[in-house]
């Protein structure tokens, strides 16, 4: 089928986006709307002595100014993470207020909301809000936050430690380490990144006739509705309608409900007019949730032949000043599910200390915990290969979990269901011409440049929440409508799901209408994140479609005066098995709307339950090849190869696009991107100039291919593709750079690999850059 699963079908959503007529939240303007601006804390840490709003209230055009005292009826922003330490103590999760209460804990924390007649008036007035604090020492560094004498952010708790998460068996690790012929240690920084979708956050809140309506970019409107209704407003779910129009990228941040969205609703209810807020970029750097930010020490024990006996991984994870919605879940359970990644590790001990610091809260960022887990193992493998004098591919070969051992239960009790790690790696090595590297290295050497090649193998555990819902309806004209709880914000679900339905029903692609992101229609859904949409939404859509066909079969049987068992379905036609009579899908849909057939029409809602604790395991091998100018530290990516196993590829065009995007984000983290707070807690990276994201000129052509190993646990065989690139690229790139620098005696370097860092490494200078 031309538009079915597996075809490179162009996207249905594109025409509006390429003509400038896509409707993003900032393009939404309601009659008589007011504008909100946020006054933010310029202080990283302090007790609030006073907030003087008089001048702001008196400013031109100002309608209202709110501080925490004015919104006492509202709850805080909740954290969804539920986890306990080994002793059974729950993670300490402090209240995260919409507007600062009592203390400010990071630069950019919202202190007051100012509503005025124009955006400029609101912003000008917000600058007049006077915040006075008694300064407290800022805690920025993770090691400092963990120290016994550290200033405590949340005094009632007594320390900055939210939870000490442990997994595995420390005694077994000790025994493995004692018996080991080799021990390999790495100390790693997984740098803090700013997810920075290109659309700054925006919200339009409108309260009318007892109902709240929120226009807000998101990764799933239903989840936002739940948080707003239950945790923040304490109102019935149906009293809040969330509409997410086009959403300009997510990468994790839009799974969060940020305070500004709730504040527009609050202000609209109080003022009787719609209220719009639109953040600018510098505000986004201060107030979009950040990603990553781990310090990790890892220790690998190996036998004589380079086979791993065990690993110990100890991480300090930065939560920021409060828990985001997923905060402590990301570095612990999310990454922990694949701890040890694709390798057989007889013993494992995993320890994560989640700490509060005076920085913007950290949340999910593309991969959320999995890239960090993969980075640790891939650096360990390369370091082991170096120390043992074994090939970097060979050491992986000796330690991969073989397909024959699957399903393979890892140390987190997660069952890795499928994957051909060695075969996938071999495909990548071949496409990258790993074997021919030496020739290319010599050529670079002749030009005075250092060349290196590196490998990053990743595995993810994907799927997120185990339930997802889809509703499929066939209209009397034979067209289909599908409502999903996932939320496409660039992934192209409108296309992919239509492909699945086109296959299921045998109807034309353009007869399928797609609805998402509006809670007036979407009654359940986990949204998009964790590479879950094709496997979760996709299956819900497929099964709902199949349910509709079955429903229709019963109707068709009656129309054809026969038994359902004698009715076949193909390409929008129900036929008797002897082909003596037939009725179209449209006719059946029309009949189903009559009283005779109950009048409900031909529709089915399917809630797919994958089963708690089960996941899919996208995996892949990425190879980066780089050249470094030792005199300036400039690194050039010469070649990049990705071979991914995302299970069945629904649409190669879209899947490759996900790989490209993930890889470039991963390369951005590895090369350029770094959120920097100075030692006083001031953010130094507040613009696209200071926070460097990759542009087209410095990014390589990415050679993308797939090794489709179908997932055995779902009928589509899909695994997910959204995050693999962000997992594979950082280790591939760093391993390549270290390979290039090996001739200069360099064995360790931390992301991001800025030219200065590479220059220092290449010239034997201290890697300790000036702090801040």
């Amino acid at each position: 089928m031309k538009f079915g699963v597996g075809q490179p079908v162009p996207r249905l959503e594109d025409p509006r986006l390429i003509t400038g007529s896509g409707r993003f939240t900032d393009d939404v303007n309601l009659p008589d709307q007011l504008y909100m601006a946020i006054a933010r804390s310029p202080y990283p840490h302090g007790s609030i002595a006073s907030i003087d709003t008089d001048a702001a209230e008196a400013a031109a055009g100002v309608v209202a100014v709110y501080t925490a005292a004015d919104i006492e009826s509202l709850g805080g922003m909740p954290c969804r993470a539920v986890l306990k330490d080994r002793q059974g103590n729950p993670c300490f999760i402090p209240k995260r207020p919409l507007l600062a209460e009592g203390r400010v804990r990071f630069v950019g924390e919202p202190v007051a909301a100012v509503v005025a007649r124009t955006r400029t008036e609101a912003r000008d007035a917000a600058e007049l809000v006077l915040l006075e604090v008694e300064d407290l020492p800022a805690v920025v560094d993770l090691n400092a936050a963990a120290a016994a004498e550290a200033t405590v952010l949340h005094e009632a708790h007594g320390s900055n430690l939210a939870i000490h998460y442990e997994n595995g068996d420390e005694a077994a690790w000790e025994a493995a380490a004692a018996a080991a012929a080799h021990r390999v240690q790495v100390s790693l920084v997984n740098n803090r990144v700013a997810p920075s979708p290109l659309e700054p956050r925006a919200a339009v809140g409108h309260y009318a006739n007892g109902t709240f309506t929120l226009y807000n970019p998101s990764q799933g409107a239903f989840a936002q509705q739940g948080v707003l209704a239950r945790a923040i407003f304490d109102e019935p779910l149906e009293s809040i309608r969330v509409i997410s129009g086009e959403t300009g990228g997510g990468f994790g941040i839009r799974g969060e409900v940020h305070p500004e969205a709730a504040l527009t609703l609050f202000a609209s209810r109080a003022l009787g007019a719609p209220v719009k807020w639109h953040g600018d970029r510098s505000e986004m750097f201060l107030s979009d949730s950040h990603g990553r930010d781990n310090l990790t020490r890892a220790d690998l024990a190996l036998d004589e032949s380079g086979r791993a006996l065990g690993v110990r991984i100890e991480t300090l994870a930065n939560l920021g000043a409060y828990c985001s919605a997923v905060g402590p879940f990301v570095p612990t359970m999310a990454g922990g599910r694949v701890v040890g990644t694709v390798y057989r590790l007889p013993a494992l001990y995993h320890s994560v200390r989640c700490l509060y610091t005076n920085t913007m809260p950290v949340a999910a960022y593309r991969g959320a915990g999995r890239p960090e887990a993969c980075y640790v193992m891939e650096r360990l493998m390369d370091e082991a290969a170096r120390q043992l004098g074994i090939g970097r591919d060979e050491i992986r070969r000796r330690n991969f979990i073989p397909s024959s051992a699957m399903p393979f239960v890892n140390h987190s009790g997660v069952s890795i269901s499928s994957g051909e790690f060695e075969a996938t790696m071999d495909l990548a090595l071949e496409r990258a011409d790993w074997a021919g590297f030496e020739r290319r290295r010599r050529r670079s050497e002749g030009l005075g440049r250092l060349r290196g090649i590196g490998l990053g193998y990743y595995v993810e555990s994907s799927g997120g929440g185990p339930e997802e819902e889809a509703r499929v309806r066939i209209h009397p004209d034979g067209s289909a409508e599908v409502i999903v709880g996932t939320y496409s914000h660039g992934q192209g679900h409108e296309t992919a799901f239509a492909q699945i339905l086109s296959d299921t029903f045998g109807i034309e692609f353009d007869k399928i209408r797609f609805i998402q992101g509006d809670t007036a229609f979407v009654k359940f859904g986990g949204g998009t994140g964790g590479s879950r949409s094709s496997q979760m939404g996709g299956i819900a859509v497929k099964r709902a479609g199949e349910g509709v066909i079955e429903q229709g079969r019963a109707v068709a049987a009656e129309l054809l005066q026969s038994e359902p068992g004698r009715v076949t379905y193909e390409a929008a036609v129900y036929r008797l098995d002897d082909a003596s009579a037939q009725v179209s899908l449209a006719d059946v849909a029309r009949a189903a709307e009559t009283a005779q057939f109950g009048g409900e029409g031909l529709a089915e809602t399917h809630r797919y339950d994958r089963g708690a604790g089960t996941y899919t395991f996208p995996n892949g091998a990425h190879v980066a090849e780089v050249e470094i100018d030792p005199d300036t530290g400039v690194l050039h990516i010469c070649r990049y190869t990705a071979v991914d196993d995302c299970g069945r590829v629904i649409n190669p065009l879209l899947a490759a696009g996900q790989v490209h995007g993930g890889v470039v984000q991963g390369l951005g983290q590895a090369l350029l991107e770094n959120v920097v707070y100075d030692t006083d807690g001031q953010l130094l990276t507040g613009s696209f100039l200071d926070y460097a994201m990759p542009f087209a000129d410095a990014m390589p052509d990415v050679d993308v291919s797939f090794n489709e190993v179908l997932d055995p646990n779902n009928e589509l065989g899909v695994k997910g593709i959204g995050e693999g690139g962000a997992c594979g690229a950082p280790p591939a790139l760093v391993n390549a750079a270290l390979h290039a620098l090996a001739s200069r005696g360099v064995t360790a370097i931390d992301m991001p690999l800025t030219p200065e860092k590479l220059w220092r490494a290449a010239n034997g200078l201290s890697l300790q850059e000036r702090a801040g």
Partner: protein
Amino acid sequence: MRYEAPSSSKEAAKLLASAKGKAVVLAGGTDLLVRMKSGAVEPDLIVDIKRIGATQEIKKSGNGFKIGAGVSGARLGKHRALKKAWPGVVEATNLIGSDQIQGRCTMAGNLCNASPAADSVPAMVAANAKANVVGPGGRRTVAVEKIPTGPGKTSLKKGEIIESITLPAKAPRSGDAYLRFIPRTEMDIAVVSAGVNLTLDSKGVVKKARVALGAVAPTVLLVEDAAKAIVGTKLDDDALAALAAACEAACRPIDDMRGTIEFRTEVAGVLARRAALTAYERAGGKK
């Protein structure tokens, strides 16, 4: 706030001189509008000089090229004769930001921002360019290196604007080049940069040299010792090493997130050396 777009430099100077409150000159606006957005500057009067005929021209004469203060980097990059005569200056100006920024940014604006990291300035200084200034007291001509006096500060007096910049006529057997270092290849601020302008004699020996460094001091530096290090040589290895050493010795950079003192200093030498080789080749020198 008021916006004016006068049609003559004299009129512009008058507006600026008589302005009450903060008055600013708008050429390409790529810096001014960013500073207005952030609130760093809140002007009461904006004088757009792009409607002044003289700011829009590139004039070639026996004395060289007169480049209007409103001429964008993109236009400069398309001017064949200018590119042939002063490739280093054109390349340097074309390095200011992306194509979008090139559509607006100007050499004069780049000079008046008085950023030590301004890309076109080291190349202009190496080229011995002059700024043609118009003010309430009439016209004057100033060497470009005399315009910036410190980060964000210029020697221009109230009411003065730069109407155009003059690049001298290209001497026979001369060539210029500019190189900079930035963390990304596009769209970034120079961490260190070097502009070199050489004139050779008929034997390929450097007769005259001007070497300028950017982003290593509060203003762009004209490094005379660096020029001395290569005059009378054919840029042999010793001369290049002396050039790099003189550049390093002249550096007084800051330490910040973008680059440490150590890095800026050493890379200044590397870039000066590489720029000198390019300039030498452009001057017709054979290595």
